[in-house]
């Protein structure tokens, strides 16, 4: 009976311990990776291909999401803003929401699925087929070769993809306002400009930069910790995506509390 009562506490204890263990391992991995940045001859030739893979190849899906988000934002804003609220607030709402929240967060979550899963599956397969060990035996630092170019590519390319997504989202909202809401272009732009603050864009850039580090970092960490064949690769891929999504949402709240 006593054992039954203690079971939930034991589960919480085990969960806390494994969480702390993972944190410790992640800290060790990324502090070692930070040291590996010095091996520039290893990672610099790999940076551009990784930037293309992480950033350029993610543009179509990011723009697809942003386009429909912009359209829906405009339609819902028009539906919600009734009575004395002037219609140009549709532009305000679309602009502010796309820049501050939906552009960075939606793009971050989508890329967690696309980029994070890709990195984790690739490195996980390399781990279980001993390719990571092979790199070491060939005198390569696996962190400099595998982790550094991917995380740097994420940090550099996420802001670019997010800014593009924000622009396309706003453009889609503007087009919707013109075509479906019978607003004029001047009205939409007036709403867009009225509460615009340049800091908002910096806020989006800072957020997306941190999301880039989180998505690629989680992919690398989970990939390199893979054990046990194809099933293990599947498990670590799922873990990479879930972890990245959770950290993105936590960071989103953190940056809003700290920077706004």
């Amino acid at each position: 009976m006593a054992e039954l009562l203690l079971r939930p506490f034991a589960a919480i204890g085990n969960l806390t311990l494994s969480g702390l263990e993972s944190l410790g391992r992640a800290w060790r991995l990324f502090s070692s990776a930070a040291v590996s940045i010095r091996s520039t001859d290893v990672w610099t030739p790999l940076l551009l291909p990784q930037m293309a893979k992480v950033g350029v190849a993610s543009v179509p899906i990011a723009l697809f999401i942003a386009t429909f988000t912009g359209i829906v934002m405009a339609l819902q804003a028009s539906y919600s803003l009734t009575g004395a609220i002037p219609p140009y607030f549709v532009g305000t709402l679309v602009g502010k929401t796309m820049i501050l929240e939906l552009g960075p967060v939606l793009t971050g979550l989508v890329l967690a699925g696309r980029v994070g899963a890709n990195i984790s599956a690739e490195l996980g397969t390399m781990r279980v087929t001993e390719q990571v060990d092979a790199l070491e035996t060939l005198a390569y630092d696996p962190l400099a070769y595998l982790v550094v170019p991917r995380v740097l590519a994420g940090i550099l390319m996420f802001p670019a993809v997010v800014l593009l997504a924000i622009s396309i989202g706003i453009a889609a909202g503007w087009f919707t306002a013109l075509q479906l809401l019978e607003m004029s272009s001047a009205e939409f732009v007036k709403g867009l400009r009225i509460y615009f603050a340049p800091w908002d864009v910096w806020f989006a850039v800072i957020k997306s930069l941190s999301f880039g580090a989180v998505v690629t970092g989680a992919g690398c960490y989970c990939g390199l910790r893979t054990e046990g064949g194809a099933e293990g690769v599947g498990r670590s891929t799922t873990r990479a995506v879930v972890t990245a999504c959770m950290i993105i949402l936590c960071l989103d709240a953190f940056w809003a509390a700290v920077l706004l």
Partner: protein
Amino acid sequence: MSIRLQEVRKSFGPKPVLKGFTLEVRDGETLAIVGPSGSGKSVLLKHVAGLLRPDAGSVLVDTYSVPDLGRKELIQLRRRIGYVFQFAALFDSMTVAENVGMGLRRMPGWDAQRIAARVAECLALVDLNGLGDRYPAQLSGGQRKRAGLARAIAPSPKFLLYDEPTTGLDPVTTTVIDRLILRMSDELGVTGLVVTHDMTSAYRVADRITLLHDGRARFTGTPAEVRAAGDEVLRGFVEGDPDLYFGSGRD
């Protein structure tokens, strides 16, 4: 002496794999470590290459104490060690030639022309001429193993570690690989450590054979000594007799 393991212990979680393994591989010889699957042979090899750290005991390669090496020194030592992986561990996204040239790109003073010449030389040595532009997925099992061997010997290592080099190969390809291992020893003068459970192969390539049993070196001797040995566990392994190997009463 070139490779020396002294009282090496290693556990994974609660499971002890090596329980005080001691071994000496002399300069220029090829030593085969035999034992059943799961007995810790590959774990042992990874200790020599510095891919695993022992819980206790020492691993010496030439004058280097492998577990005590810093990152830079370990990289320097690994330039002198070639590692042939059980399933070749070729990089999928690279061609065979790029795989073979990987280690050379990290060597000071090696330009693209010199690397290409050495890659061609190594591919010829393992009879893979003309296959340099293929990807690993386009190779057969035996060809992949040979490509893995070519990659390991490209930086002209002093030591070659072979992890189950003939597992999963047909008898003819097994003989081809065994001959290559002998060539590496005879022509290149490398010190070899071969991990295998294939006794035919061990007899063919090894100067001495060690049986790894219950985490320790149970028996070490020349192939002739192994054939003549009366040790029951060794006999059980060589003859494939589980009663002798595990002791009577166990299935």
